[in-house]
């Protein structure tokens, strides 16, 4: 089975391949619940039910020790000095880039740009790509279900360029309405679309967006497709070359890596043409009083001293996921997701948002309890050790679509167990009792 199977299975189709079916049949046998013990914070807090991994994941020992080791043994600035220590630091940084390259199956290390996270990656792109492609009267296409990080940078780019920000609308079940693309054809607005940017998985509702269909539409028109993979990379194997996307952004801290780490992947032919976003040290080739020339990829987009330890920690996280087995991990989470969906959707007085087909969603469960505000739900749950999120999840347009100000959100990672979900369900009942 190729690495791409997971991506395509979960992007569009409901059908499963034989490996995934086998894993689904016995996911816990493949990866026991003791995986939780590899996470020091969770091991030290056995009563904590952590269901907020869509906000940030906990970190395994492998990641913590890699960061610690870097600072204790290899710390020096990169790409500059000639002594051994600086050489080791540069190697640690560039090896980390190779780990990301291999994890994403990118065509080259030149396509891997380290950033502080998804937000920075998308800001870089929104600025640079709009400089290259967008002029007055053009259209930037995003969706109603985006996280603000994949919405506001494009909105601002559109304002700067005198362009229009168009939203692919969403249906009430939290899926995208792709008929809108045909509408764009009919009134010939499609010709004005210069960039399309969508999330792979919605952080508000867990919807897996139909990336393959969107990418096909973009490909036919030569429009670059930007994928916000912040919520998908932790849960699905992704092969960027097969993905149909031209750019992909993700955050290290949601894939078991450290905060302040992130990656922008882009196809080299695009990155070559794009102007640098931040300027300064490291990203230049020649600096003269009147003008400068730029360093080669990926350094053109990495101005200043990078967070080397963050890159090292991110690489350690991806290695850890690979060693654990991305398919195993995916199957375990998917099975737990099905269980969560079944338990939550059977509760009275609970509205669960997002697709009703559990195969079209992943890891994120947004809900409201009748007559009880999400804040009060989360506050109660804290007292019984269940950590969930409440609020608009940085997705106000999506909340507005549902006609709600906020939701309670439980999100899963590979260290969660059936017992965690049982406690969540008990806590929901407890909230309902308390506020009755």
């Amino acid at each position, binding site marked *: 089975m190729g690495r791409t199977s997971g991506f395509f299975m979960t992007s569009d189709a409901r059908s499963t391949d034989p490996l995934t079916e086998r894993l689904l049949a016995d996911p816990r046998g493949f990866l026991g619940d003791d995986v939780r013990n590899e996470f020091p914070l969770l091991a030290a*807090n056995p*009563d904590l039910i952590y269901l907020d991994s869509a906000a940030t994941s906990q970190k395994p020992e492998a990641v913590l020790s890699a960061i610690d080791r870097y600072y204790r043994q290899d710390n020096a600035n990169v790409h500059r000095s000639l002594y051994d220590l600086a050489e080791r630091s540069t190697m640690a940084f560039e090896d980390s880039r190779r780990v990301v390259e291999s994890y994403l199956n990118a065509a080259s290390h030149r396509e891997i740009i380290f950033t502080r996270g998804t937000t920075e990656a998308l800001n870089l792109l929104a600025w640079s790509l709009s400089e290259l492609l967008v002029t007055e009267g053009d259209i930037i296409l995003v969706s109603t279900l985006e996280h603000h990080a994949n919405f506001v940078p494009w909105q601002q780019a559109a304002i700067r360029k005198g362009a229009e920000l168009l939203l692919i609308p969403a249906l009430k079940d939290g899926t995208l309405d792709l008929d809108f693309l045909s509408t764009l054809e009919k009134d010939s607005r499609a010709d004005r679309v210069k960039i399309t940017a969508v999330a792979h998985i919605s952080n508000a509702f867990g919807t897996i967006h139909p990336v393959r269909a969107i990418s096909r539409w973009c490909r036919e028109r030569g429009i670059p497709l930007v994928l916000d993979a912040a919520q998908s990379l932790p849960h699905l194997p992704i092969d960027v070359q097969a993905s149909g996307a031209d750019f992909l952004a993700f955050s290290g801290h949601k894939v078991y890596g450290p905060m302040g780490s992130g990656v922008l992947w882009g196809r080299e032919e695009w990155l070559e043409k794009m102007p640098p976003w931040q300027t300064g040290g490291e990203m230049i080739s020649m600096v003269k009083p009147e003008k400068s020339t730029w360093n080669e990829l990926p350094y053109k987009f990495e101005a200043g001293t990078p967070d080397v330890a963050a890159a090292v920690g991110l690489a350690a996280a991806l290695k850890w996921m690979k060693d654990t087995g991305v398919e195993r991990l995916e199957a375990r989470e998917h099975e737990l997701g099905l269980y969560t969906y079944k338990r939550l959707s059977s509760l009275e007085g609970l509205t669960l948002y997002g697709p009703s087909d559990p195969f079209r969603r992943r890891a994120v469960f947004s809900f409201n309890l009748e007559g009880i505000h999400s*804040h009060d739900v989360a506050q109660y749950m804290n*007292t019984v*050790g269940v950590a969930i999120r409440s*609020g608009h999840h940085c997705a106000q347009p999506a909340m507005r679509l549902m006609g709600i*100000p*906020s939701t309670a959100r439980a999100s899963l990672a590979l260290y969660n167990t059936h017992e965690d979900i049982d406690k969540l369900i008990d806590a929901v009942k407890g909230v309902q009792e308390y*506020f009755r």
Partner: protein
Amino acid sequence: MMQQSSGDLDDLYMEIILDHYKSPRNRADLSHISDDETHENPSCGDTLKLEVLMGDDGRIKSVLFDGHGCAISTASASLMSERLPGKTREEARQFIDAFLKVLRGEEHPSRLEEWGDLAVLGGVVQFPLRIKCATLAWHALEKTLEELIP
């Protein structure tokens, strides 16, 4: 071990707060007020509209509110609206100022005791993340009073 909130849940959701949440006083349909004049807590998406009606004697006649909020923000708006009628704008300003000082931790919650049921909101101080919920209505009132034509 995990750091739990210092407060007990029942210190936050006192009987009076739950009562005002379930049956808010002075909540009305304020759809005639434009959405641009909605007050928001951007961190959680809560919204509040406020209308202050002044009497001919220069005193507040009534305060009405509308919007979406949690138990704390709804109860806070409801309790606030009950205490305001009869106050001049200046008195209302001092009232807001004193409340916000308590919620910011600059004054002891016992300061609220002379205000009857409102005193229960002093318990919110133990829950730092919920302070914004309790103050939303008060900041809205502050702004509304500023914008009132004298």
